């Protein structure tokens, strides 16, 4: 059933360790990169004092957050208060292992992935859903109203975007006929990138991935202007740092998954180097998401719910039905290429058209902003 070569267990353990260490280092430097980029967007300097041009800032931050006083609030549920950040980090780290970074045997003769599951996509879903409990329990266990509001928001948004996210991924799965991430990448190598066949699904998945990583247009659980710090209001020192870590790991994983599922993964039509393109694509999406954070406003709570149920879910469903029709009737797959192009043109039209209509009727903003 699973045609890919399997590594010995010691090698799998070593690669798992490598992924964890790599993600932790990436997290530390992403905080610096994000702060420097945001500063640049806002025409200021950003952190530039620690080390050469601020490069040692993450180290200073780490030392500070470890040695600060670690408070446990009086009204907190003591066990869950400590457990919540750990749940968050563990499930965030678990997701990254299934993403392939190159063809079989390209990691010093071993495989460039940690896990190769037949149900890789379902595994990702399961892990990312469980990761919500970190945020969720933290908000409740703090025994504070702001924290509780943050966690209620996170659960309500999970329910609203998860359905759209899942159904958006069904159309590429139908085309490929497999849930294995390696199969999906190889199919794209042979037939062309899935974004060409399923542009609406790509768009919906990118939006929902922002919501899943709680990035800016959807960072309601920790909206600092409204909720102090959201779910981590009562957390300090290393536990707070663990929440930051969780958030950035989700962010990095999301930016690795979008290219894997829709943009050919590690493959490229020209100049095929196993790791290079994957890292470039991840970097591109990380930059794009920071750019969005610097430019875009945060959606209101009810706007997110309306976007989830009123835009993501129906559009994902319609596109899934279209793909299912093409696959079931065994029509040529190139029909989907034209339909994707049409969807892209509709999106372009909506972007060019919406500012005028939004000024007349401010209530329509949420839909226009979503499209």
């Amino acid at each position: 059933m699973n045609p890919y070569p399997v590594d010995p267990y010691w090698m799998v353990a070593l690669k798992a360790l490598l992924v964890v260490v790599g993600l932790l280092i990436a997290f530390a430097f992403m905080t610096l990169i994000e702060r420097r980029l945001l500063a640049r967007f806002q025409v200021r300097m950003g952190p530039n004092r620690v080390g050469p041009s601020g490069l040692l800032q993450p180290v200073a931050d780490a030392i500070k957050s470890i040695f600060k006083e670690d408070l446990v609030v009086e009204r907190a549920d003591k066990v869950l208060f400590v457990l919540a950040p750990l749940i968050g980090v563990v499930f965030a780290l678990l997701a990254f292992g299934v993403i392939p970074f190159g063809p079989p045997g390209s990691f010093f003769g071993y495989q460039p992935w940690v896990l190769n599951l037949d149900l890789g996509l379902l595994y990702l879903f399961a892990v990312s859903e469980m990761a919500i409990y970190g945020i969720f329990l933290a908000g409740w266990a703090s025994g504070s109203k702001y924290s509780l509001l943050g966690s209620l928001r996170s659960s309500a948004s999970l329910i609203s975007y998860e359905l759209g996210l899942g159904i958006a991924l069904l159309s590429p799965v139908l085309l490929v006929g497999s849930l294995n991430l390696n199969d999906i990448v190889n199919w794209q190598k042979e037939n062309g990138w899935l974004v060409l066949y399923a542009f609406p699904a790509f768009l919906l998945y990118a939006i929902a991935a922002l919501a899943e990583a709680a990035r800016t247009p959807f960072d309601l659980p920790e909206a600092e202007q409204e909720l102090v710090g959201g779910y981590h209001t009562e957390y300090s020192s290393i536990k707070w740092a663990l929440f930051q870590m969780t958030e950035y790991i989700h962010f990095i994983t999301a930016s690795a998954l979008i290219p894997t599922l829709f943009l050919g993964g590690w493959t490229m039509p020209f100049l095929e180097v196993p790791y290079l393109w994957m890292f470039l694509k991840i970097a591109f999406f990380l930059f794009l998401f920071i750019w969005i954070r610097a430019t875009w406003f945060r959606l209101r709570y009810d706007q997110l719910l309306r976007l989830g149920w009123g835009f993501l879910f129906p559009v994902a469903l319609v596109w899934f039905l279209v793909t299912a029709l093409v696959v079931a009737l065994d029509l040529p797959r190139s029909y989907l290429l034209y339909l994707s192009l049409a969807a892209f043109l509709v999106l372009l039209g909506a972007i060019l058209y919406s500012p005028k209509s939004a000024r007349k009727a401010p209530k329509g903003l949420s839909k226009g902003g979503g499209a």
Partner: protein
Amino acid sequence: MSPLEALALLALLFTGVLVVTLKNAIHAALALIGNFLILAGIYVALEARFLGFIQIIAYAGAIVVLFLFVIMLLYAAQGEVGFDPLARSRPLALLLSLGVALVLLSGLWGLNLAFTQDLKGGLPQALGPLLYGDWLGVLLAVGFLLMVATVVAVALVQPTRPLDALSPEERKEEKEVVR
């Protein structure tokens, strides 16, 4: 029964008992998540991998998130569910649960557990034709039942008159009730 199977069985029973006995509703919901995760592990060990992952995604993920959402909205401040409305009925509950167990066990009696189809490790590629072929009628019936339940639930929480048919004062009250 191998030691690992025994361990899984004990963990299942233990978390199940915790769900019923814990006073704090949030802790009980967490025990329920633990129970579902162990069950998913058992499914995967029995080569029903698709079912195992669906168990995590649908039950341990979405449904318990809904449970927790409702619990947090209702008992936000304390989390303790409080008084036990059926304090004297423990023997009755024991009797009932034993009866249910007996009914389930009697269903297993004489069941021929010989697999006639190769399910290839329970992957969707093998399950799909079976589910949407031989068992299509059952699947549609279950789906229809669920849909009816959803429609009824939505109909029950509807306000008596549509919001825009009310006068401004009434609308204010109605909105407060809905919230």
